[in-house]
């Protein structure tokens, strides 16, 4: 079943098309990897799905329901949660309270204080940060703050989770832990779209990969199909190998 579907999604910044006529879909229960060079429009696509930005044209459906034109808080309450490329935590609160915000406000129905506290504790435990619960969030490392963002998003009880470069800036060990975390989230039955530059992570856990370049979708398929795709190698993978050598 298609949980999210976009048709002709387009976003202009002035005269520049950051996302140009992109058709895409996400199947329930999969991990969709979203890759492409810098400036390809990956984060812009996330911003359009989560309604941080209004689309210039095109439409999107979540579980068959039209979501274009909704406000970000409504999108969240419908069941689409996200994290941010540059962490956006509530710096004026302790860790647990960051997660509590998601538990309190992220659902369409009213939730009691005790239930919210319970869910927040569980979400924090799920990402393995119970020990830092009472610490000021600013005291955490980047990897930990990213995990708090994941916990906060999970506390909203999403069906679809958008992870924006969860692994950027992490050490190889932390990348391994993050991959394991993403798989566990999928195993909970949550569908995932992840933007990532860490190829090992994308190729390791994605069910399917979509490649953006200059705002256009240039390829889509399983990891094997993508890593053999000539255009992708020329534009993106080749570039990386080149840069690495």
């Amino acid at each position: 079943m298609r949980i999210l579907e976009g048709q002709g999604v387009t976003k202009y910044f002035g005269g520049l098309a950051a996302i140009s006529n992109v058709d895409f879909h996400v199947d329930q229960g999969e991990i969709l990897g979203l890759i492409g060079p810098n400036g390809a429009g990956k984060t812009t696509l996330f911003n359009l799905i989560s309604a941080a930005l209004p689309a210039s044209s095109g439409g999107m459906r979540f579980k068959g329901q039209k979501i274009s034109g909704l406000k970000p808080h409504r999108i969240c309450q419908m069941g689409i949660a996200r994290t941010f490329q540059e962490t956006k935590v509530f710096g004026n609160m302790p860790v647990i309270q960051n997660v509590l915000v998601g538990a309190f406000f992220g659902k369409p129905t009213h939730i009691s204080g005790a239930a919210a506290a319970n869910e927040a504790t569980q979400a924090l435990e799920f990402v393995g940060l119970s020990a830092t619960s009472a610490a000021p969030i600013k005291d955490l490392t980047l990897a930990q703050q990213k995990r708090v963002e994941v916990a906060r998003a999970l506390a909203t009880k999403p069906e679809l989770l958008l992870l924006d470069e969860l692994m950027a800036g992490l050490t190889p060990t932390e990348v391994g832990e993050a991959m394991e975390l993403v798989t566990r989230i999928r195993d909970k039955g949550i569908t995932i779209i992840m933007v990532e530059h860490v190829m090992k992570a994308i190729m390791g856990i994605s069910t399917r990969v979509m490649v953006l370049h200059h705002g256009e979708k240039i390829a889509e398929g399983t990891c094997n199909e993508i890593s053999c795709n000539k255009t992708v190698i020329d534009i993106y993978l080749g570039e990386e190998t080149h840069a690495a050598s």
Partner: protein
Amino acid sequence: MGFLILLIAFVLTFPLYGGARTRVLITMLVYAILAMSWAMFSGTTGYMSLAPAAFFGTGIYTTYLLQNHLPLPIIIVAAGLISFVLAVLLGLVTLRLKGIYFTIFTFGLVVFIPNVVTYVEGEVTQHHGWYFNVLDRTIILYTMLGLAVVTVLAIYLIRRSRLGLAMQSIGGNEEAAEHMGIDTTRTKVLTFAISAIFMGAAGAVLAPSLSYSNPTIAYSAFYSFVPIVAAVFGGMGSLQGPIVGGLLFGFLEKTLKVEWNTYFMLGFGIIIVLVILFLPTGMVGLVPILRDKLGGAISKWRKGREGEQHANT
């Protein structure tokens, strides 16, 4: 909370100490109410509002308009409601602005609204200046005290509620707050308007003690700066901070300004700078420091005594 009870007891018994000081106490309470309600919205969300004078002045104007038609308690409620509605309308326009643009816009209101009132008075009612039916100052003092207590309780409850958490998350990161399911526009407009209730009500209570006012005096920008100065001075982050700041600022202003007008503002300016530099949590930040120091000294002294007793036995 214990400190609040002490304060109430102090104010209740005040007429016993001599009536001349009632005016000072009223001012102290007004400043505390303004500072508390300002900090509730601006201190938490990070939206620096310069609008308090707009609501405070509206409260004074409300009393002027209604004083011959309604009893004071109803006028106070009416002033609160009018300020609330005014704040909702203004909030819907201004709260889409961020940072300095929001601040300047709110300040624009403080300049704009009294001019509208003056124009209306000049063109429509042909009345200039507002005279108030004089009321016993002690009654005004107790009413103001009641309002201050209501304000403290309301803000205390809001801080603990989910509305308080929503506000705090806007202050932490507004974009993230939106994506966590918070209707940020609604939260901001609502809390901005709630804070306006107390500012308007304070103006309405104060009005009968003024005997005379006019749009320029009532909407003086001074009332927009008082809450900020008082809140920063006392400490913005806590519930007590703005109360302490407001009371202290009111007291210092009313008692010292009489004798040393210019030097008072100069001296107070220096104190504010020192507080900002060395006590980022305001005057209330002194309490834990003093407690640590005193506690340390006391336990040392106790240990010393115990040691002595030990030696004696």
